[in-house]
């Protein structure tokens, strides 16, 4: 080392404290402590049974939601959306027009179709808030249960989510028979959301 450099070296070993140096030292220490703290705080392990249960819904890619336009029914749409969000599943909204046996299935039922369009539009708006892919269909059948089963089969639904009215809730067709049909004949998973009587409206 040259004498000039040695002199420079000697000049710089004297103690010297600068504000910026203290700040840099504090930043360095804080950053190191933060990194170490984060590294050691590892999330808790998930057991095989818990993981299997938690991820069992991941295979649900298409959820069929029957709707009648009633509040309890649209609540079923919201419930389905929340179930679909994590795996970005598709929602298929279905409104079943029950055609009396005295009429052919294709008979014009303008009022019912208008009601269906209104109900499906509300449902679509609910789904749109979640940003999920959605389709809506009007299904004609002799009973609501038959229509839902047929729609689920046509669209290869993984899950049916449907809101149920409480018994004694007037103004909309009861779901007792429909629920029975779904429970006994649906080939996919079914979730019923029965709203308590005092909140059904």
């Amino acid at each position, binding site marked *: 080392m040259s004498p000039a450099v040695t002199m420079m070296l000697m000049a*710089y070993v004297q*103690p010297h404290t600068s504000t910026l140096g203290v700040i840099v*030292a504090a930043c*360095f220490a804080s950053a190191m402590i933060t990194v170490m703290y984060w590294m050691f705080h590892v999330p808790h392990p998930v057991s095989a049974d818990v993981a299997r249960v938690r*991820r069992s819904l991941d295979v649900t890619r298409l959820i069929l939601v029957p709707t009648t336009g009633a509040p309890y029914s649209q609540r079923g749409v919201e419930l389905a959306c929340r179930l679909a969000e994590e795996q970005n599943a598709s929602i298929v909204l279905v409104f079943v027009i029950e055609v009396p046996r005295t009429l052919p299935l294709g008979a014009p039922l303008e009022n019912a179709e208008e009601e269906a369009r209104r109900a499906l539009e509300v449902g679509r708006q609910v789904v749109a808030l979640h940003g999920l892919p959605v389709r809506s269909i009007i299904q004609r059948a002799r009973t609501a249960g038959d229509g839902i089963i047929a729609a689920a089969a046509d669209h290869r639904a993984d899950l049916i989510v449907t809101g149920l009215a409480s018994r004694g809730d007037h103004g909309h067709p009861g779901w007792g028979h429909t629920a029975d049909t779904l429970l006994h004949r649906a080939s996919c998973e079914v979730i019923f959301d029965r709203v308590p009587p005092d909140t059904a409206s």
Partner: protein
Amino acid sequence: MTEASAAPGRGVAESGLRRDVTVWGSYMWGYADVGADIYAALGLVIASAQGGAVAAFAFAGLVYIMIGLAYTELAATYPVAGGGQYFALRGLGDFWGFVAGSALLLDYTIDIALFAVASSGYINFFFPAASKITVSFGPFHEVAIVWCLEAVVLVILLILLNVKGMRESSLLNEVLGAIDIVSESTIIIIGFIFAWRPELLSFQWHQQLAHWNWRQFAYGASLAIISFVGLESISQAAQETRRPATIVPRTSISLILTVFFFATAFSSLSLGILPWQAFVGREGDPVAMLAHSIPYIGMVAGPFAAVLGATILLISANSGVMSASRLTFSMSRFHFISEWFDVVHPKYRTPARTIMIFSGIGILQIILAFLAGRDRALEILGNMYAFGASTGYLLVFIALIKLRFTDPFSPRPYKVPLNIQIHRKGMTYEFPVLAVIGTLGVSMILLMVVLTHEIGRIAGPSWIIACFIYYAIYRRKKKLPVFGALPHDWEGQQQQVLEDAEEFDLLERYRAALATRDRARIDAEQ
């Protein structure tokens, strides 16, 4: 069907390696390499880049961060032994997996040799006469025989430690690494508080700008980039890490940040305390010299820094032993090298043969390097270091890009940021822009290595060609394709790996993704 293709699932699921590396152990496997590189690189970089050393470290740090993030994603997604070799195999096929493996194997064997030599050099701080004892025989002059023997003995000790088991060698890393981190942090904090002069740093930077030399800067930056190998070590240990998909992203990202903090802090501190000229000719112990210049602790800094350097360099050599043995173990599992290496020790359950054989190659490299003369051993070993790393990391970047498209179903607990979503045939792929930038960056480094490293550009390719000749003979003998790929049940292996790693949540996510894909295929066929 050939013997090998009849059992394509072999390789990861049946490895039998114990999972006993903890969070701290995983972090320390990486730090063992990177921490030592700071000790070696600081003086070299400052001597080369001069007043621009902080910028050189920052530039190198950017490339390092990109490589680190790529390794973080891949090691967390595929937590198996093999590191870059396995990633290249998954993404690019058998041949490129072999090329990446042989390049990284070169680095690991040199890692063992280089850091064992450097560690014994620091030990000789207390016995200065030892490194001066030389012998001359035949065409070899001034062979530092004692220093050479010290390094060889260190490697033999590390072999014994690693054969005995992972827990033992992991414990060594953990204890020594902790001491080193505390010590380095102390030097930095006390240095900034009691000795740092920002005006000196500013003055040297402006002087450098006034006489900017791109060649010097590029050379300094390429030296700083040597510290890449640390993250490779973490991915090598992933198969023995508890819950690797959860732990590896944390340890990798922590390591990236720690190294970046240390590199920029040490370079800023150095140029804020001493003129860059003070480091010229003191490349061997820059940290010791820096510590010696700090008030209050300078009195004991010399011996302390020597002990510190010896320990961190020793655990770096130990990390090289671990990584080389596990890489070759993985390569034998995939029929790149003989199955003879594929035997786990019946008592310790460690790949004892691979540990001994490739650490033995490290010993051979030490002897050959010393035969070139006392002052050239470290230079020769260091010269070959960058070639293997650059080649391996280039293939890893390409593999990462391809795997985003060929294997979109494997759950990725961590993803390299900056992605462009591409929707194609009902699938969503994420194109990693950062990996493309990283590919270009590493390509530039590889080009720089070939242009500027006289020994590296000859010895590096020669090593890979020699490995290829062995590979071709072995594969032909086994009637396996040399350039083609064997059938691999990647999906089955991936499930087995995740189950073995007790990453049950990821396992179920993976199964759900495969089920969805299978159903989509059935729907498309109907």
